């Protein structure tokens, strides 16, 4: 009962009942406020797209995907801080698809600057660019952008709503608004009597919000402190609801098999053996995939194994070596970008020593703990889709197109996500469920991918090659000339999400290399795009995930070639360029007691990456235990500008590091016959509790602007480990994963 009750309760947000309220507050940096997507039932009032009040209390809408990064807690805290509600008393929901929920920070990131050198003018320009997000339906969680997006907007939203509630109380009591105070969801009169927000909401909805002034950080109750996560009890008691936990009356369970030669079609299939298997209800042709519908997911999976399917070939060279040959050939073409070209990178400075190195990193899977899945119900007119996703409007549009219904008749119910890392921005899981539901009108159906299906049908982090040439003179780097070749993530994904074919320089392709705060006089980074049809997508930190390994391993190689301490070498190159970045390196130096020297059997490496507005330095220590190498310790220092929730930031930094180290140690997707050769976790393992290092994190707050936290911990982890292994063994890691060349504790 309680589960169905919850779903029914949530449905008020997207039900087709009359719109009440819908007052748009002067909180958005846009001229025309987007329509309020909340459609409250009688007795409920939407004060704005983010605040809904009924007799039971206050519900806050946090339209950013909660995939573990803690965004719901801090997003709610931003509103609650000014609204004066107790966080433990509010409910927080993802809300429906709606233009009002556009991401104002992501478009700003698309500006060509390096980030760390942003002037106040460029910062404003970025904010102005953000409003374009509304036009392109950018209700997207990604790019470590949520807090940059919500920091001012959500506090203004909370403050504006608070003032209208006070005005409603003032009108009722016949006194002026400035005589009233607010506290824990109530307006307090001078005589100590109070009116709850629930009592005032309906009146408040008709009041135009006055201008508001945000509270000084010294008055903050929630922000700047570690707040208990609002989802932590549910996630510790098995009561948190993920997409895969959706249960509807009469729901059927289905399993999926799509062409393992990715993007290839289906010639035909024979389902006669499967149709007679226990529990099976039907076998459905989804065009380029087959679904078996049963009364149990496992029975559906068993029957699916009995379906004989004739697949077409892959639309790309079928072997890994051929793919990397194609990537290498891209260097012969014209570069797509030269996002950095300082000084003269063509000429070797006089008296300098030259170094040229090639690096290679593999394709990688996201491998979220919760396999891809979606649940759908098509009643002939409307389509309901339940799934964890990072972009509800894109999902809504795609599902509408596939189901042949109007976009406004598609209701996307965004659930908690068992991991995202970029994977849940894709549209395939909701698409397949929609295609299936369209052939089963009136019956809700949950389509769950097996782990094998998930692993072998990803949008992979592209395999990449970096060719780096540099030179040192008098102990300093005087030349760094990097070339990066890979498939373009943005080129593919923007086309999938929004039908946009981006042109011009691909910034994401070279991020983590072109925008690092080193003062090297001759400094050039060029990007080369490889045209291949292997599905690629955003993988935690995207371009930074390969470029940081190239760039920071190369900086380390230059330091060693110059006979210098690699940490001091970096600090010297950054002096006068970006003080917060220097601060991060100084912090890990102090935390780790870095001396530049390690005893026999111990190795240490350092790396640094500025990404998503946040500089992060990491030191990794490895030890040789009778021939097996253990990653023993890690130190992280990041500068986020303003630390909105230190506990969540620490968790994200640790998480980013472990995700990166997992890939660096063991992660590799390879192809044979056009099919991915990895099926399940035994073929694509990650760090586990016993081989995860002890981690110490320091959060600094000197950076001028708020930085992201979900991704920046990942990029420097991989080169820091490689650099530590060099210190331990004298062998330079130039390809990943490291377990191929080093005997790492598995």
């Amino acid at each position, binding site marked *: 009962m309680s589960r169905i009750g919850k779903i029914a309760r949530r449905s008020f947000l997207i039900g087709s009942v009359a719109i009440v309220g819908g007052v748009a507050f002067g909180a958005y940096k846009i001229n025309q406020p987007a329509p309020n997507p909340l459609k409250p039932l009688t007795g409920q009032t939407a004060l704005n797209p983010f605040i809904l009040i009924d007799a039971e209390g206050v519900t806050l809408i946090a339209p950013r995907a909660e995939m573990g990064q803690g965004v719901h807690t801090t997003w709610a805290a931003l509103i609650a801080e000014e609204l004066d509600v107790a966080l433990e008393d509010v409910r927080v929901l993802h809300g429906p698809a709606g233009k009002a929920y556009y991401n104002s920070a992501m478009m700003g990131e698309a500006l060509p600057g390096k980030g760390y050198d942003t002037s106040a003018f460029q910062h404003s320009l970025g904010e102005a660019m953000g409003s374009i997000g509304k036009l392109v339906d950018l209700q997207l969680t990604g790019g470590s952008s949520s807090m940059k997006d919500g920091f001012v907007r959500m506090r203004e939203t909370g403050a504006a709503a608070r003032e209208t509630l006070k005005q409603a109380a003032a009108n009722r009591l016949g006194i002026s608004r400035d005589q009233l105070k607010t506290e824990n969801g109530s307006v307090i009169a001078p005589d100590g009597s109070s009116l709850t927000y629930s009592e005032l909401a309906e009146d408040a909805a008709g009041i135009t919000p006055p201008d508001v002034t945000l509270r000084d950080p010294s008055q903050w109750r929630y922000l700047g402190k570690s707040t208990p996560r609002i989802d*932590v009890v549910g996630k510790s008691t098995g009561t948190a609801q993920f997409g895969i936990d959706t249960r509807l009356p009469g729901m059927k369970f289905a399993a999926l098999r799509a062409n393992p030669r990715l993007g290839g079609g289906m010639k035909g299939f024979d389902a006669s053996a499967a149709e007679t298997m226990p529990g099976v209800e039907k076998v459905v042709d989804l065009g380029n995939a087959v679904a078996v519908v049963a009364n149990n997911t496992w029975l559906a999976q068993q029957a699916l194994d009995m379906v004989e399917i004739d697949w077409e070939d892959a639309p790309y060279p079928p072997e890994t070596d051929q793919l990397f040959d194609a990537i290498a050939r891209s260097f012969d073409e014209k570069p797509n970008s030269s996002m950095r070209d300082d000084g003269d990178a063509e000429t070797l400075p006089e008296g300098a020593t030259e170094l040229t190195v090639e690096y290679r990193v593999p394709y990688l899977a996201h*491998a979220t703990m919760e396999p891809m899945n979606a649940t759908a119900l098509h009643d002939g007119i409307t389509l309901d889709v339940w799934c964890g996703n990072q972009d509800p409007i894109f999902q809504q549009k795609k599902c509408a197109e596939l189901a042949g219904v109007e976009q406004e008749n598609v209701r996307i119910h965004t659930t908690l996500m068992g991991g995202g890392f970029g994977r849940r921005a894709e549209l395939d899981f909701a698409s397949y469920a929609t295609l299936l539901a369209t052939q089963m009108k009136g019956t809700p159906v949950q389509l769950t991918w097996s782990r094998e299906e998930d692993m072998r049908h990803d949008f992979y982090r592209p395999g990449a090659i970096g060719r780096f040439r540099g030179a040192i003179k008098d102990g300093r780097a005087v030349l760094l000339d990097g070339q990066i070749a890979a498939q373009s993530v943005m080129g593919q994904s923007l086309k999938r999400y929004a039908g946009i074919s981006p042109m011009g320089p691909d910034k994401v392709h070279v991020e983590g290399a072109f925008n690092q705060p080193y003062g090297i006089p001759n400094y050039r980074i060029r990007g080369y795009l490889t045209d291949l049809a292997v599905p690629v997508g955003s993988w935690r930190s995207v371009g930074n995930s390969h470029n940081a390994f190239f760039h920071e391993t190369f900086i380390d190689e230059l330091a060693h070639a110059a006979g210098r301490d690699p940490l001091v070498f970096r600090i010297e190159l950054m002096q006068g360029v970006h003080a917060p970045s220097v601060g991060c390196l100084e912090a890990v130096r102090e935390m780790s007691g870095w001396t530049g020297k390690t005893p026999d059997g111990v190795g240490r490496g350092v790396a640094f990456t500025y990404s998503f507005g946040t500089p992060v330095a990491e030191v990794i220590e490895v030890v040789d235990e009778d021939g097996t190498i253990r990653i023993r310790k890690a130190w992280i220092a990041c500068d986020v500008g303003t630390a909105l929730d230190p506990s969540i930031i620490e968790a994200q930094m640790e998480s980013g590091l472990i995700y990166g180290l997992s890939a660096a140690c063991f992660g590799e997707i390879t192809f044979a016959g056009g099919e991915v050769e990895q099926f399940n976790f035994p073929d694509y393992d990650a760090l586990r509790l016993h081989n995860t290092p002890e981690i110490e994190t320091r959060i600094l707050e000197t950076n001028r602007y708020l930085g992201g936290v979900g991704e920046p911990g990942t990029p420097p982890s991989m080169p820091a480990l490689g650099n530590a292994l060099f210190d331990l063994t004298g062998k330079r890691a130039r390809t990943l994963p490291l377990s191929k060349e080093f005997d790492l504790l598995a």
Partner: protein
Amino acid sequence: MSTSLKINGKTHDVDLPEDVPLLWVLRDEIGLTGTKYGCGVAACGACTVHIGDTAVRSCQVALGDVWDDVTTIEGLGTPETMAVIQSAWVEHQVAQCGYCQSGQIMQAAALLAENDSPTDEDIDLAMQGNLCRCGTYPRIRAAIHAASAKMKEV
């Protein structure tokens, strides 16, 4: 033919083939969705439940082979009355995406039932079959130590 199972103290008659894994009986038939599907091959531990006092991967135990009473995460404690180990998980703010945590907690509960003072090495050994892609391991370790201390107080 129906099979009778006792889960979290309650008896259920299940009408499914005997080779259906306990995981899928719990999730799709009984509606106890706290136990998660992660890999289906006992490589991630997300589906960990207790049969009797033993932590098992429910994706590997066929319905017909369940030999004793079953406890799932829902039977360990509820949001209102959490078990000591669950309270420690909350206190240490362990969960990120949270998907693997039911399995982590069930595995840790079985460890503490057998050994009320686990060392770091004991924890390494007991918990290495449980995968967490968010990397909550440092807080898992801290929460197990805290729960151990708390259990000894009582």
